[in-house]
């Protein structure tokens, strides 16, 4: 398997700036180090959308900046498109960066003029610039606004222009750092659809998506890594990450004649009345099986109208992981 992005034991720390008080009281004291990344291993396959999921301060942005040659790692190695990030002149033509910063354009210039400027920086051949910009403006649905000043754009339009800029030189790899952070729900949905259908589906780009939006990760990513305090805690497909650490098994039943006396190797987590039936969520215990639940209900005179397995969601897995982290810290 050939990987588009790889990280091997990546480490990065930042020195915390000392306050004037500290400088005055301990002039020769050592500055505090903040560990942003601690031994990150990462393998992103070609053509996949790989999510970096984590709370604020987890190290997602630092990792994206290392991969986009803006920050140097202290230890370890990062390889993008087969090139070490220390050879930035070989890596940069292979990547496009989309972040959530609206300020990364010239506000007095039109969208088209902004793209024209960056096209020259991205080494798009002169005769191809106009056609490429036209094509991209059409793809991100900004044709009508192309000659309006960037300052007049809405947040959604600004973000779409940022995507167009990242695509100017048609890089095989896109690094996206919270691309929908400042967008309203409708714009977020549209951008997600564009990422999934156009960038991955049509163009076959490899996309590294840093986000703390669980829904976004769930909808977009083929695989994801959960980052907490600079370390990768879990890597896998969305389904794998969802089930991570879960040993309980839960089912949702719609039952008539449910009562508290129904018992077996399970317990009811919740019971609610819906349309004359009871919706019961049961959790199996020990070696209990779904059959045990169904038999117990039927023996007690109940009728099972519907039954399905409850899939754990990503939010739950993520919350569980953070709870464990907190417990570790407390310990």
């Amino acid at each position, binding site marked *: 398997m050939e990987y588009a992005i790889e990280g091997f034991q990546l480490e*990065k720390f*930042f*020195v915390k700036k000392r306050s004037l008080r500290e400088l005055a009281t301990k002039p020769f004291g050592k500055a505090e180090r903040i560990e*942003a990344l601690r031994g990150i291993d990462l393998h992103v396959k070609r053509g996949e959308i790989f999510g970096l999921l984590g709370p604020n301060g987890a190290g997602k942005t*630092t990792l994206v*900046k290392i991969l*986009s*040659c*803006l*920050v*140097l790692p*202290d230890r370890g190695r990062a390889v993008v498109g087969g090139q070490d990030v220390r050879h930035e*002149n070989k890596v*940069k*033509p292979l*990547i*496009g*960066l989309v*972040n959530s*910063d*609206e*300020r*990364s*354009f*010239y506000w*007095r*210039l039109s969208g088209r*003029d902004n793209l*024209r*400027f*960056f096209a*020259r*920086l*991205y*080494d798009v051949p*002169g005769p191809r610039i106009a056609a490429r910009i036209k094509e991209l403006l059409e793809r991100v649905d900004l044709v009508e606004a192309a000659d309006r*000043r960037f300052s007049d754009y809405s947040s959604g339009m600004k973000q779409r222009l940022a995507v167009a*800029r990242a695509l100017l*030189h048609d890089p095989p790899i896109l690094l996206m750092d919270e691309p929908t952070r400042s967008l309203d729900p409708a714009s977020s949905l549209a951008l997600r659809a564009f990422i999934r259908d156009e960038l991955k589906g049509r163009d076959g780009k490899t996309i590294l998506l840093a986000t703390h939006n669980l829904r976004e990760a769930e909808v977009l990513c083929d695989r994801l890594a959960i980052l907490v305090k600079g370390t990768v805690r879990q890597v896998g497909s969305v389904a794998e990450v969802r089930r991570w650490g879960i040993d309980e098994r839960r089912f949702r039943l719609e039952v008539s004649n449910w009562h508290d006396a129904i018992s077996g190797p399970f317990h009811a987590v919740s019971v609610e009345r819906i349309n004359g039936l009871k919706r019961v969520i049961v959790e199996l215990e020990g070696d209990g099986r779904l059959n045990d639940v169904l038999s117990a209900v039927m023996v007690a005179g109940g009728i099972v109208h519907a039954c399905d397995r409850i899939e754990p969601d990503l939010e739950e897995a993520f919350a569980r992981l953070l709870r464990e982290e907190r417990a570790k810290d407390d310990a």
Partner: protein
Amino acid sequence: MRRVLIKLWAFFYRDVLSDVSYRFSFLLSVGGMLFLVTGLSFFSRIVNPATPGLDGMEPFPWMLIGLGFQFYFSTALYSFAEKVRGEQMMGTLEAMLVSPTPTSLVIFSSTAYDFTWGAFRLIVYLSAAVFVYGVKLHVVSPLALFLGIALTLLSSAGIGLISASFILYFKRGDPVNLFLSGGTFFFGNVFIPSKVLPPAAQWISAWFPMAWSMKVVRGALLQGASLQDVAGELGRLAVLTLVLVPLGLWGSRIAIRRAKREGTLIQY
């Protein structure tokens, strides 16, 4: 080379569009140039033409050429740092540094418009002086003038790059320009003839590169100085260029590397 020119044009065109979009400011700055020349022509009338240091030149062209060239040369001193800081604050530096354009070329090219605008301003000053106020230029050696301007710009660019390195690394606080901005006006023989300064200040002035440049451009434009007449100053400027340009490039490389290591390249 073609690639460099394309980038230079891109930065130049970007700044033209941006500057012209502020129409009032643009018109004001053009009007300001004419106002300065007019103001200077009246101000120079209160200056005694026999003032030591004018070396027989009329006060008006002496002052105008001093100020005009000082503005132009200061572009090389200040614009690198100003542009870096401006792009950091606007948030556009990151987008540029992610592109395949080398960082040094980004810094260098971002001043293309400033240099062109500085040259335009100088031409406006000189044209107004010649065509409106009847100043007579006496150029014997265009080569001496060209070398004087080129070497001053290059050596100043060396200092400008060192200055930009401080901004890249420390974000604010640039000791190089702090020293030069005050010092040049006082010691640089720009507006105050060095010979009217106290002896100690005259000694400092003799070591000030701007004073050498002023001697070359005034000599070449107003006194018909030949290449030999200003060879000493040109030699000193050439040595300075040979030292400062590599030092500036080295400094900026170190600053970029350190800022990347500390993750502060795009912070301000």
